């Protein structure tokens, strides 16, 4: 079989064998499954291990790594058994100090709650930038910050009315996008990346600076601008649907937030199916080709930067509203990268990608957080303290999420919604 699939080579070349990549993946996943990810990675380790063995079997001249694959497979089985045991024990008995139902409820609450909305909005903006146009904006947190502070500073420091302040908050990201775009969008892609990440940091440090704390609130941030928003809240009691529950305030934010997401998605959907969206996708592929056909590439990139930046600003505005306070640490570069994570999970250049991605991201982060938190607390914790203690567990969930992202890139590089065919195209 192998002889027919491989190209006929003139002479039997002495090519060195290489370890099949799936074998390495399997072993890594197998170890990760038993340690960091509490069994979640294990079924994948098993699967990859089988894949690797089959591939090595089919092509023994080219590949090695049988032992690694076997190791991954065995560890995968062990981890899967462990995972199933935990699930069964946790769901149906009291023997485990972990309440699996609570874990799921926490996770679902976060996946549908205000935090996921913030990241969904930010990721929708990044989707316009990176997914459709190929612009590397690493400063989405900066757009969020000007959106949030545009509102807070206007109301608190300058005593402008709430609705006028909302207007300022919507305009601020446009100004920022133009300031960033004019000098960089004519240059290579990397310049925008550098300029955006630097600007976002400068903004965060400025907003938190001691010198400007009279105007911008310093590291304590600003509060007391959201009363109009809260007065509009028609809900006066807690919403409990069984699988999710929100406080009255959160219910209002969830309603407002998902409506905002829906409108943004509608805008993206309508624009990206149009010839305008086609130009953006073409720019992502090859700017010079687009130029040669008479399109003003700079203008299109600027429009995309402004549009995506506005979505970012909206994310900041919503964060400021739902939280009723702005603090500079909420706009660190981490936020940008988590939004990118959400985008890649859901699938770039897909309308729903960033939203589904943000929901999954928050589901995993908070689900794992809740599970590991419970598993490491109490007098006799499920996970012995020499492996991980309670304070460490809140960090481990990020490590685990990173691993999850790796898994995704291995198995579905196009994200949940992406088009496999697009990935399969090689750039000749």
């Amino acid at each position, binding site marked *: 079989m192998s002889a027919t699939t491989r190209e006929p080579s003139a002479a039997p070349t002495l090519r060195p064998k290489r370890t099949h990549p799936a074998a390495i993946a399997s072993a890594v996943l197998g170890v990760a499954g038993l340690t960091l990810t509490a069994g979640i990675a294990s079924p994948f380790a098993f699967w990859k291990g089988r894949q690797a063995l089959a591939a090595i079997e089919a092509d023994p001249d080219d590949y090695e790594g049988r032992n690694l694959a076997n190791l991954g497979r065995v560890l995968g089985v062990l981890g899967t058994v462990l995972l199933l045991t935990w699930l069964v024990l946790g769901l149906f008995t009291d023997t485990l100090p972990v309440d699996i139902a609570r874990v799921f409820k926490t996770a679902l609450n976060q996946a549908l709650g205000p935090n996921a909305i913030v990241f969904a909005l930010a990721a929708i903006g990044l989707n316009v930038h990176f997914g459709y146009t190929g612009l590397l904006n690493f400063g989405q947190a900066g757009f969020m910050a000007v959106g949030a502070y545009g509102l807070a500073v206007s109301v608190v420091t300058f005593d402008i009315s709430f609705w006028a302040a909302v207007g300022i908050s919507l305009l601020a990201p446009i100004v920022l996008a133009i300031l960033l775009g004019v000098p960089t969008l004519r240059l*290579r892609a990397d310049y925008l990346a550098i300029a955006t990440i630097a600007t976002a940091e400068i903004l965060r440090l400025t907003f938190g600076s001691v010198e400007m704390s009279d105007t911008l609130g310093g590291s304590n941030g600003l509060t007391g601008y959201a009363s109009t928003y809260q007065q509009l809240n028609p809900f006066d009691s807690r919403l409990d649907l069984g699988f999710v529950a929100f406080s009255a305030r959160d219910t209002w934010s969830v309603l407002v937030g998902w409506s905002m997401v829906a409108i943004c998605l509608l805008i993206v959907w309508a*624009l990206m199916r149009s010839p305008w969206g086609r130009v953006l*996708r073409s720019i992502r*592929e090859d700017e010079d080709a687009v*130029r*040669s056909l008479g399109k003003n590439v700079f203008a299109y990139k600027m429009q995309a930067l402004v549009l995506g930046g506005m979505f970012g600003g909206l994310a900041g505005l919503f964060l400021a509203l739902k939280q009723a306070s702005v603090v500079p640490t909420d706009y660190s570069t981490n936020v940008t990268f988590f939004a990118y994570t959400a985008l890649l999970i859901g699938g770039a250049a897909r309308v729903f990608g960033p939203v589904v991605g943000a929901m999954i991201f928050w589901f995993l982060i908070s689900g794992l957080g809740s599970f590991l938190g419970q598993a490491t607390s109490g007098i006799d914790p499920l996970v012995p303290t020499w492996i991980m203690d309670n304070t460490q567990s809140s960090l481990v969930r990020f490590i685990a999420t990173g691993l999850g992202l790796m898994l995704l890139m291995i198995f579905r590089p196009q994200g949940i919604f992406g088009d496999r065919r697009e990935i399969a195209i090689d*750039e*000749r």
Partner: protein
Amino acid sequence: MSADTEPNRPSAAAPRPDLSGLEARPGVPKPDPIVKGDGIRRTFGGLAAVDVEHIEIQRGVITALIGPNGAGKTTLFNLLTGFDMPDSGEWSFNGTSLQRVAPYKVARLGMVRTFQLTKVLAKLTVIENMRLGATGQRGEKFWSAALPFLWRSQEEANTRRADDLLARFKLDAKREDFAGSLSGGQRKLLEMARALMVDPELIMLDEPMAGVNPALKQSLLGHVKSLRDEGRTVLFVEHDMDMVRDISDWVIVMAQGQIVAEGTPSEVMSNPAVIDAYLGAHHDTDLTELDEHEIDSEAEAELAHETPRKADKHRKDVP
């Protein structure tokens, strides 16, 4: 249908200009030049990639630009279309000076080029590549993009025109495929067809036949001729001498950045200066049978500088 798909060119009916009486020397003035350039010079480090004293391209005919690899043909294309900046020189298209005019504006003026290393948009389908070429699209404006009723009819007309062109270039079977899945020759065809969507007055083809299979080459020759018969002007770079002899009305020969000869195909092919400059060491070989391997590796070397605008970004400010 063809009434609105074929460009309406006033010159289409006019008789083709006869260039046979023209003096065969470099930089000779043409009766009705569409492009006119003077003192165009572009250096890379110490090397003068292009150093053209005077060039004129006659309107309504097919002009071939030939010369050995590294002669500066692609660089001249880049300069004329604004994709690269010259050290000095000026040129005009239809009397409009193109000094420091951005590439997209050059294209809008009606001067559209293809690339030696094809630039198809791999993750767009073939038909989407084609649609992108159409100019003046209302749907490409931000404010009307979200309102399909404003652009749908125009889009349909563009699609019809695109389908006609695809059929002409035998790509209709590939209509819904990603352009990235096409073969090298098919990409050349798609790029040419897409450039025609712009409805250019002057189309500049950089090695359009490279990688196109011989059977298709013949029909492509016919298409290029028909472009001229529609009233368009064609300037093309080609290594295939049979093709040059077959379809070009005028030939410009470059070597080491300079125009070393001009003339009708037969004049040029019998010009000893050309044979010298062009063939160099390959004196006895048929041009079409130059060492394939050598050509390949030279093409690869060109990959690195195909779009010098990018590579030279930082260097541009240095005097």
